[in-house]
């Protein structure tokens, strides 16, 4: 295995293109190091010292998360009521040791169905900025995840950043695990809402752990839109209905973390809970 530490994005792309399919990008390594212990690679491309990739820029609700920004680095975004959903996910990845090393972009590129930042990034309409031998392109995250561990990236492509567009409202993410730390999500749910005059005018729901990729539950989101949040009974009914619809939008499988039936039930409960957290956050003011 050849270890390369390029000084620029262009150089990194060139190295990746020189060994198609046999070169791997190394960010925090929290997934890759154990993966390569089993499978190996011809070339490992360490991007951690490429200038600019560590930038985290947040303004007016939009944010750019560079490729080497760690889960821990995202913590300051917690004060922002929409971006807090991404931080909710970042905060539960592994343990403190993991979060100081693991990157958000690595979480996206790993494309685990249960990756903890992915449902929130999906609901916030994040795009990945990608550079390859053919130049730069943007890929919406809803097109990015193909199947477990498989993304829309070509062999020579590198994600340089994630971009979340500015928008109003608030969002939240929660997951179900058996153990608080060092456990992967059985299911994870993110909800983003926008409220005007007490009415939910826009909603997006992201689900993890319930299919081959994290996904957007469009019908569930549609159930939420139009709800009068100031009528507690109506809200309670809608949240139950949203959970019921979410259960239908899942295609979970049985595995060691849970049966399909258990996951479906868990999602339907979490949707209501997370929606309430997101709604509560619409009342708080941004500090970011």
């Amino acid at each position: 295995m050849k270890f390369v530490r390029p000084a620029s994005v262009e150089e990194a792309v060139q190295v990746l293109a020189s060994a198609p399919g046999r070169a791997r990008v190394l960010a925090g390594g929290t997934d890759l190091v154990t993966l390569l212990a089993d499978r190996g690679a011809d070339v490992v491309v360490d991007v951690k010292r490429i200038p600019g990739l560590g930038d985290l820029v947040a303004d007016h609700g939009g944010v750019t998360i560079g490729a080497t920004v760690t889960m821990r680095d995202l913590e300051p975004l917690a004060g922002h009521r929409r971006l807090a959903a991404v931080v909710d996910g970042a905060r539960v990845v592994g343990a403190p040791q993991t979060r100081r090393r693991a990157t958000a972009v690595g979480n996206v590129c790993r494309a685990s169905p249960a990756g903890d930042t992915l449902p929130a990034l999906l609901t916030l309409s994040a795009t990945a900025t990608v550079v390859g031998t053919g130049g730069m392109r943007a890929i919406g995250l809803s097109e990015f995840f193909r199947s477990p561990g498989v993304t829309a990236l070509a062999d020579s492509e590198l994600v340089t950043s994630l971009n979340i567009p500015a928008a109003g409202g608030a969002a939240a993410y929660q997951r179900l695990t058996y153990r608080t730390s060092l456990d992967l999500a059985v299911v994870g749910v993110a909800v983003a809402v926008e409220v005007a005059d007490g009415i939910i005018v826009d909603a997006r729901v992201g689900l993890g752990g319930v299919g081959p990729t994290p996904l957007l539950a469009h019908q569930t989101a549609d159930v939420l839109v139009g709800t009068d949040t100031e009528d507690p009974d109506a809200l309670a009914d809608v949240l139950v209905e949203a959970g019921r619809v979410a259960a239908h939008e899942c295609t979970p499988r049985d595995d060691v973390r849970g049966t399909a039936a258990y996951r479906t039930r868990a999602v339907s409960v979490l949707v209501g809970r997370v929606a309430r957290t997101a709604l509560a956050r619409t009342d708080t003011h941004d500090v970011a």
Partner: protein
Amino acid sequence: MMSPNDLSATEVSVSVDGHAAASRVPSTRLLLDYLREDRGATAPKWGCGTGDCGACTVVLDGVALDSCLVYAAECDGSSVMTSAGLETTPVGIAATEELLAAGAVQCGICTPGFLVTIVSGVGDLGPSPTREQIVELLSGNVCRCTGYLPIIEAVQRLAARVNGG
């Protein structure tokens, strides 16, 4: 064509507990193996090798992380502190005293990892951390013997002592 930054020759220069040395390592060499076998720094322990137990925790350029998930080649020009180096610092000495006083060590295999986590994290806890804050700090370190209670107690006392409680 080899780029000037190509480390396939894997010459790494790393400072370990204040001692700098350069050597050649295979690119697949993990930092944990490099420390233990190439540098004789046996304080970090092999537990799981998958980032789950924290026995291999070291401080790399100021960041406490699992050395079983890092390649030695990534660390060229870096500085690593293991528990052996940290336990001679003022906070390290205090931490060692509190761990001993609380009876927080049984077989000891987890202790160097806990010490690194505690010494590098206690400063952020303030003088009177909650139990939840301490549990969160320690959540990446597994102990199969102590039941954690004496370790938590040691951190509580240490936080009061070093953060002026």
